[in-house]
């Protein structure tokens, strides 16, 4: 067991955990943040995407020992990124309105990947969106509604 201190969605935590436990499992089991999903367990599908110090990572590939002192954002903390106490982040609102979520299992990861993409390219063109989300698999939508959601979110953010 190791002691790990980290901040998740703005809350500091001090955890006694096996050092090689996957960040994904620490989030889901130790912190009950089940919004982060496991799809493949090998870094292919992106369902377990979270922000680690602002970087987009597959939490199934991150041993928790690497998160010492880190700041992590999961889907449960995304609305707060829009401002404290916000019910929805514009990205979440746009996924909802444009049909970007169907079965919903890839949605948390997709929303975090979108957040990361829009930090990098506030007004992305279609190829930047396609490239930026290529690490997040969706089997339901064919991605078209997701692209529409991302573009709408970029417009919403841009007009603020």
């Amino acid at each position, binding site marked *: 067991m190791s002691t790990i201190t980290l901040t998740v969605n703005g809350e500091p935590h001090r955890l006694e955990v096996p050092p090689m436990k996957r960040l994904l499992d620490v989030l*889901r089991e130790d912190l009950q*943040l*089940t*919004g*982060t*999903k*496991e*799809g*493949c*367990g*090998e870094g*292919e*599908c992106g*369902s377990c995407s979270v922000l680690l110090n602002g970087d987009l990572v597959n939490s199934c590939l991150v041993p928790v020992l690497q998160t010492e002192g880190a700041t992590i954002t*999961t*889907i*449960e903390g*995304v*609305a707060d990124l829009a401002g404290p106490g916000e019910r*929805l982040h514009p990205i*979440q*609102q746009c*996924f*909802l*309105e*444009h*049909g970007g*979520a*169907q*079965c*919903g*299992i*890839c*949605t*948390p990861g997709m*929303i975090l990947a979108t957040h990361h993409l829009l930090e990098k390219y506030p007004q992305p063109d279609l190829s930047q*969106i*396609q*490239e930026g*989300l*290529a*690490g*997040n*698999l*969706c*089997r*339901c*939508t*064919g*991605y*078209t*509604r*997701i*692209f529409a959601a991302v573009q709408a979110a970029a417009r919403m953010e841009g007009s603020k």
Partner: protein
Amino acid sequence: MPEFSPSEPLQTVGRSPLRKEGLAKVVGQAKYVDDLSLPGMWYGATVRSSVARGRIRSIEFGPDIPWHEFTIVTAADIPGENVIVHLAKDHPCLAATHVNHPDEPILLLAHPDRAILPAAVAAVRVQYEELPAVFTIDESEAPDAPAIWQDPAAPAKNTFKQYLMQCGDEASLDEIFASADFIVEGEYRTGAQEQLYIENNGIIAEFDREAGVKVQGAMQCPYYVVHALQLVFNLPAEKCRVIQTETGGAFGGKEDFPSVIASHAALLAMKAGRPVKICYDRAEDLAGTTKRHPSRSRHRTAVSRDGRLLGGTIEVALDGGAYLTLTSTVLSRATIHAPGPYHWPALRVVGKAMATNLPPHGAFRGFGAPQSIFGTERHMNKIARTIGLTPEELRRRNLLRVGDRTATGQLITDTVDMQQLLTRALQETNYHAKREEFARTNPGSTIKRGIGFATFFHGSGFTGSGERRLDSLVEIEITPEGQPCILVSSTEFGQGTNTILCQVAAEALQLPYAFVQIAQPDTARVPNSGPTVASRTAMIVGKLVERAAYSLRDTLLHSGLLPGDYTEQDFRTAALAYVAQHGPLKSSVRYQSPGDIFWDDQNYRGEAYPAYAWAVYVAEVAVDTTTYSATCTHFYALQEVGRVLHPVLAKGQIEGGVAQGIGYALYEKCVWQRGHMANNQMTNYIMPTSADLPPIEVAFEEVPSIHGPFGAKGIGELPMDGPAPAILNAIEEATGIECDEIPLLPEDLFARMAMPQENAR
């Protein structure tokens, strides 16, 4: 009963309100099975066969595992029948003496620590006496093949099922072939395809001596699971309670399989005396659960000089895997869709499903139709080329028209005009100009471009008399808050069931969409509205919801409590007053077969489906002759699906289906090693990413159908049918090479392009 009139303006249907459970999904609060935990819950795992076929000689428990801490279940622990029932009882819940495919469940383990289970599974050593096995349709039907599946009712060795569908008489078919200007023959093959829902299969089970079995998890068809549990546990239906949790994609992959994993989890729960969760990881889900049936279609067609189909024979063969599961119904849909949307003066279709020692193949969106339509739409192009017509002209001369009869003898009464659909699709994709442009530019380029299309239809609902047998029941009840709540076993797994059924009820009740609720499917609360499959939810269940809503409204109107012109608040007040006076208010309606639907199961004659969705899909491709990769660069999908209930969801269904179809054609290959899926990882079973897909343009024509609510027909499976043949037709246009097998990966294209020139045009 108030009937819908097309001139009436609609308030909710045809608009795109927010998905009912959408908010929970975008904030990460939606609870899928693996997000749930029960007090004292253990975790289950499955020991599976490592051979394709054999007799189990011994089972040993290896050293270094504290076996006393585990609950261990074998076939001997099953209180009822050792069977997972779908259409027959050939499929054991746990292999007892023999195994018939790799990764077949033999033994179950449960332990409080999930992390210890993989080592324990690996420490169980099963010894086999191996038996000869077969892995393909061709091997299974060979005269000297070992008999791997035997049933007194089987039509032939290793044959699960055989259908004969005929129009015109046999003698006339012989004469037609003898005198035809052209006879065109072709063989077309499709591979297995994984559904690849992003949420793996998973179930949590509880067992109580008095209350019986309770399971919750990812699934499409709660009452299928009830039926399976009844047999395994020898319990009445009311003691087998099944709850669907939020389900992360299904596509057919959670139609039949949840009966297996639910039975396993429940057996462990019974023996362990505590709740048990089984959630597969990706590798186990890919290796151990169902896929789309591989197929082989053989066509022989008599054609006149002027391009009319005179007669033909089609043989559609499916690889069913080791047990029957749903194979005969998949074969039925494959057989009925094989003629395509064409007029055949005489036709014989033989469908047959063969047993192999692969894990059982099961339901996957399209359910046999994508397989046979692939063969038919490739064959139409072959006929066109052989007789010197364009693919367009050949189809124009043979497309079904209103007043024609399909190969089952069904009169086409839909006011669909496939000629006009084809005209619109080719115009909107600039087909003719592009075809000319590519013919001009291809010779000087290493990138060969092409444009191709497919014309097809897909039947909505269960085949033939299936809906009558399902006898679906739908209820709408008044909640304690005075709101209508829809009670159905039809499940939401992304396709929009919750949303469209609430729209239908809201429209019929003339209430706001947000005021109408729908219950999470729990067999202790919801009636059996049938399985969530077969493009039946919008049309069949939707129609029942519409009728139930009208009936509920009539009850309140006739009671005098509800004024003729009412608001949401008036409705609430009236509903609560009714409940106070008369007790609980629930409106129930049962399926009524439309009077004009007749089906002969023996001879495959009659109305195969109440309604069909019609479509023309157009694909553009670029084939790189240096890397041998074929890419779909633009996709256009035009369909007539009756009334579109929710445009955003409907487009999402089509786009998602097209993406799966593109994967089916160009990316997704199951690599089998003696029946075991060798590439059982997302790393090497490749589905399209956001960077792989072309722009997908979706267009609808809406001709309201009398069979669905407010004129809707089914759309869920349709988009799976067209992409593969459209893409392969485009590749043929681009390269002059006929590729008649999917998936077509670069290595396959290399093999085809490197073949001697006589095969190329």
